[in-house]
């Protein structure tokens, strides 16, 4: 059974008043709240086991190393991958940069890179830079007017342009729309494209089985998955991963150094220069343990119930335009009210203790595609409940009255 009140009690930040009213946190797409087990794993590490990893013969260092490498296994299990196919980065953004940088030598001005206008800037700009460095062409997949992929057209587009690289999001951070990846990745594979899936938004909600998904690379951020800030991950099919050029250089990632020449280690080590974010890695394993202790189906079902409940109530308000696709969605509502500026709506909602986001959501090309400057975004996670929705809708109605 899914006991939502018991779960909410695990998240201390949810139990607070904002402007004198109970916090309604609808900004999980920006960053999720953290369960107690994550907070205390961090605390325990610093208060007891704190030491640097990999190079110490003393007990603290061995304990830290052990916990650190165990954590890699825990997270690898979550995605059903091998621990040596998982590289720690500082976030999804760095993970994409690592791949885009590491492919420089593998592309030239005959190559094509395909992305989409739906992407977060983190999955656009590194590819623009790669295209600039190599002379490769950068193209965007066809999107329908509403921001949904036209899957059939995408497949044809891929067959036509035969990309060397395809980078695409698993779920849109602005809209919450889940991408129908299967046919798109299949088409890319038929042309031997290297595929990267941006899982920053989806990794929490969809608990993806990566070998089954079949992409070459998958990136995520711990802070969007109940984990700490400053940590992300890159999954890469081992050979693809190991074939990337080194990214940052320094300690930990080298085998031997002389002033004349350096020999690097094999993946994942070769991509992990410098002291890692040890505390965050260990706390992230606690987050994944927490997540897997919950029944995956129950979590997803609850999220969808809350999302659908909110979507229905939101759509019933006259003057509201919803941009999200409500069919296949991780739980994000992207909307505007008449011609009102999203900034005003978000600011007024904050007066009621409702935390939503406004703006372009780091997805300016999508905003341009939708013909808007920005939107309000309410994003849900499994720790939201019906009361959150009720408070949100009631507050929103009050705000809209203020504006009218």
């Amino acid at each position: 059974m899914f006991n939502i009140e018991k779960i909410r009690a695990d998240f201390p930040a949810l139990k607070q008043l904002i402007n004198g009213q109970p916090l309604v946190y609808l900004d999980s797409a920006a960053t999720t709240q953290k369960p107690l087990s994550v907070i205390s794993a961090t605390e325990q590490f610093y208060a007891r086991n704190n030491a640097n990893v990999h190079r110490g013969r003393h007990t603290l260092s061995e304990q830290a190393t052990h916990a650190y490498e165990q954590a890699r296994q825990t997270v690898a299990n979550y995605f059903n991958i091998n621990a040596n196919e998982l590289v720690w980065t500082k976030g999804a953004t760095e993970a994409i940069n690592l791949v885009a940088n590491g492919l420089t030598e593998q592309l030239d001005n005959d190559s094509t890179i395909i992305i989409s206008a739906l992407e977060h800037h983190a999955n656009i700009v590194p590819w623009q830079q790669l295209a600039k460095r190599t002379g490769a062409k950068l193209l965007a997949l066809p999107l329908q007017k509403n921001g949904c992929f036209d899957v059939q057209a995408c497949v044809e587009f891929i067959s036509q342009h035969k990309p060397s690289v395809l980078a695409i999001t698993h779920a849109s951070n602005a809209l919450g729309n889940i991408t129908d990846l299967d046919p798109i990745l299949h088409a890319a594979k038929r042309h031997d494209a290297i595929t990267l899936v941006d899982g920053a938004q989806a990794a929490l909600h969809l608990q993806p089985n990566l070998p089954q998904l079949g992409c070459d690379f998958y990136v995520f951020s711990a802070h969007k998955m109940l984990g700490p800030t400053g940590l992300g991950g890159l999954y890469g099919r081992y050979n693809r991963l190991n074939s990337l050029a080194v990214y940052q250089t320094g300690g930990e990632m080298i085998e031997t150094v002389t002033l004349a020449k350096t020999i690097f280690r094999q993946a994942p080590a070769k991509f992990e220069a410098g002291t890692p974010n040890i505390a965050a890695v260990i706390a992230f394993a606690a987050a994944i343990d927490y997540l897997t202790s919950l029944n995956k189906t129950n979590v997803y079902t609850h999220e969808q119930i809350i999302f659908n409940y909110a979507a229905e109530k939101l759509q019933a308000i006259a003057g509201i335009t919803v941009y999200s696709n409500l069919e296949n969605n991780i739980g994000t509502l992207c909307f505007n009210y008449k011609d009102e500026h999203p900034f005003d709506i978000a600011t007024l909602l904050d007066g009621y203790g409702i935390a939503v986001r406004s703006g372009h959501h780091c997805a300016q090309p999508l905003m341009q595609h939708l013909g808007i400057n920005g939107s309000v975004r309410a994003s849900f996670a499994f720790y939201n409940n019906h009361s959150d929705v009720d408070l949100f809708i009631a507050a929103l109605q009050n705000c809209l009255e203020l504006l009218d």
Partner: protein
Amino acid sequence: MIKTFKEIALSLESSPSWQQKYREIMLLGKQLPAMPAVLKTSDALVPGCESKVWLYLDFDLEENCLVIIGDSDTRIVKGLLAIILSLYNGLTPEQAINTDAFAQFNHLGLIQHLSPSRGNGIKAMVERIQTMAEQKN
């Protein structure tokens, strides 16, 4: 009719709720005269804000006073802008230097809007005005 800062302060202080306060602020924004499109240059745009905020600063040499024109595409920021204008417009540089927007906003219970973390450009605006006042003084 543009309200003086005194009048604004009075009506904000007598607002029975935060909602009413915001209503007043947005009303002030509505009453702000439109900014001529030619003045909305990229130089006038305050960078790094979610809302678009334009600020045009000039100096009237004859009258020795600041001329400030501003606009925003959001209602709340435009209202806050109106308060800033009511504080500074037409002041001599010396008077402007002696005007403490932070103290006044604090007094009005609006100090949080002057935080740079609000991303609304109000703080940047005050700084631009103060810089000009110091240059002209």
